[in-house]
């Protein structure tokens, strides 16, 4: 294994660069993560120090390319069920009840959009949470969950609904036994949950298609923005804003920030989760 060490100073430089370029932030307590993940990348490009790597990211002609490799490296394998509990708690305990309580709601509906859903872990997680709320009689109608990804392969995977146990590492036992069938090393999502989610292929940069999403209550778009250039990001966030109903919420990755992208939303702080609200 490599013994590359990342100095505090270099860490801060690389961290700030990533933040500027992507809006994704690595707090001091996450230094180890950056160090581990990037050490591998340094080996691949045969660099012997983080100084050289920083130079590559900052000044080289291949910097854009390297940045996207870096984003791949730092976000890899992060799609699991029940990812980031504090966000899901905010969704379940505050956001949904608040939306349901709103008196001026037009009709009985709840529309959730999982934008960039990968192989379905996120929308299925949301479906399970909503299903539980339905069982406690929080609401009686069937919520709509729309989920899409740019990759057709991912959408097929999602529709198949079969997962290696690795993806369930954050899933509470209660949900595991209630909503999955365990078969060998895999878990199969139950039909009841499957039926709640509508999957489709969508490129989030395809304005026409994205523009058809309307009257949404909650959007989840986690760890997707980092792949888009500045302008595209701004445009997408604007589209999200348009797609949301007044009072609707937008969740982005737990270490992502909209600070330099948009001030349209109201920033809401929940315990260990930042959520954006359209007023």
């Amino acid at each position: 294994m490599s013994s590359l060490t990342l100095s505090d100073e270099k860490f801060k430089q690389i961290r700030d660069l990533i933040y500027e370029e992507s809006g994704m932030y690595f707090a001091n307590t996450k230094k180890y993560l950056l160090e581990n993940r990037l050490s591998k990348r340094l080996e691949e490009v045969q660099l012997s120090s983080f100084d050289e790597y920083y130079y590559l990211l900052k000044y080289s002609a291949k910097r854009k390319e390297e940045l996207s490799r870096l984003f791949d490296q730092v976000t890899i394998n992060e799609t699991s069920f029940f990812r980031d509990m504090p966000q899901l708690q905010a969704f379940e305990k505050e956001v949904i009840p608040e939306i349901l309580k709103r008196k001026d709601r037009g009709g009985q509906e709840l529309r959730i959009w999982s934008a960039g859903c990968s192989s379905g872990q996120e929308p299925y997680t949301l479906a399970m949470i909503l299903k539980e709320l339905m069982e406690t009689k929080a609401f009686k109608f069937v919520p709509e969950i729309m989920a899409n990804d740019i990759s057709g392969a991912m959408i097929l995977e999602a529709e198949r609904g079969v997962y290696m146990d690795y993806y369930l590492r954050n899933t509470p036992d209660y949900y595991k036994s209630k909503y999955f069938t365990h078969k060998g090393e895999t878990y199969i999502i139950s039909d009841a949950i499957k039926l709640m989610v509508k999957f489709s292929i969508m490129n989030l940069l395809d304005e026409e298609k994205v523009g058809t999403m309307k009257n949404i209550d909650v959007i989840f778009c986690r760890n997707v923005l980092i792949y888009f250039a500045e302008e595209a990001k701004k445009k997408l966030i604007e589209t999200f804003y348009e797609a949301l109903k007044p009072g609707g919420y937008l969740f982005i990755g737990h270490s992502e920030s909209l600070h330099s992208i948009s001030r349209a939303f109201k920033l809401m702080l929940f315990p260990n989760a930042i959520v954006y609200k359209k007023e």
Partner: protein
Amino acid sequence: MGNDRLEEVKDRIQRIGNLPTLPKVATEVISMVGDPDVSMKEIASVISKDPSLSAKILKVANSAFYGLSQRVASIQLALVILGLSRIKNLVIGISVFSTFPIKPGQPTFDREKFWEHSAGCGQIAKILADLLKCEMDGEEFVAGLLHDIGKIVLDQFFHDQFVKVIDLTFEKDIPMIEAEEEVVGTTHAEIGSWLAEEWKLPLSLVEAITHHHSPQEAVLNPILTSIVRLSDLFCKAKGIGFSGDTKGIAISDRIAWKTLKSAKPDLEDLDVERFVFDLDAEIEKAKDFIRISSERVQTKEKV
């Protein structure tokens, strides 16, 4: 009215026992710092008479808390490097822990968590003050540390009622301060304010404790009170504390935010997200402060 009930609360505390007092050395330092005739050397000698306090001051001075480049080996040097006001505030902050020692493992009101929240609040106040370039010589840290001190008094002298307060907070999903009004008839802010006055703490500190839930009423130092209020909210946003409050907070809607913004317009540009992400590391520093302050120091002089 709250005032009558506050008088009753005061009476009852006086009857049961004594109002907790700050160690004598702390009271002495507070009054000496305000006296222009007192020299630094005299203050140093008063502090040095308390070996445990002195040891803790030096430990904190040399910790990441201040991030000094130079090692501070004596109280006199600490006074020169950190300045009188900072040392005074440090003395107040550290002394509180000998007045209200941590008793771990309390099921209803966990003092460890309480101090974690309080010191976290102090630490956040410190970064906010730095960020907004309001030099406060450590007063913001102590204000954050002490803002909820009235809760400890409630826990110590009105334990049963305080348990009811906590239950009611959860049951009715209301702010603790409202539950206190209902059960006790007065609030931790009022009780804390009284205690701070009795302790002869600086008036801006008393004000911050009194109005940390109503920063718009602060007149002496509204910036300090607003910073404490915001720190309290940021602390909640990081889930530090015992309140179990899950409500979302819109910082920009808060009166404290608006008060502070009118005095410090650059607040508008604060990258709140980044600020929140960075808090984890800061809160660790706050834990160091609690650890050092509540240590039992073995000194040669004591043996």
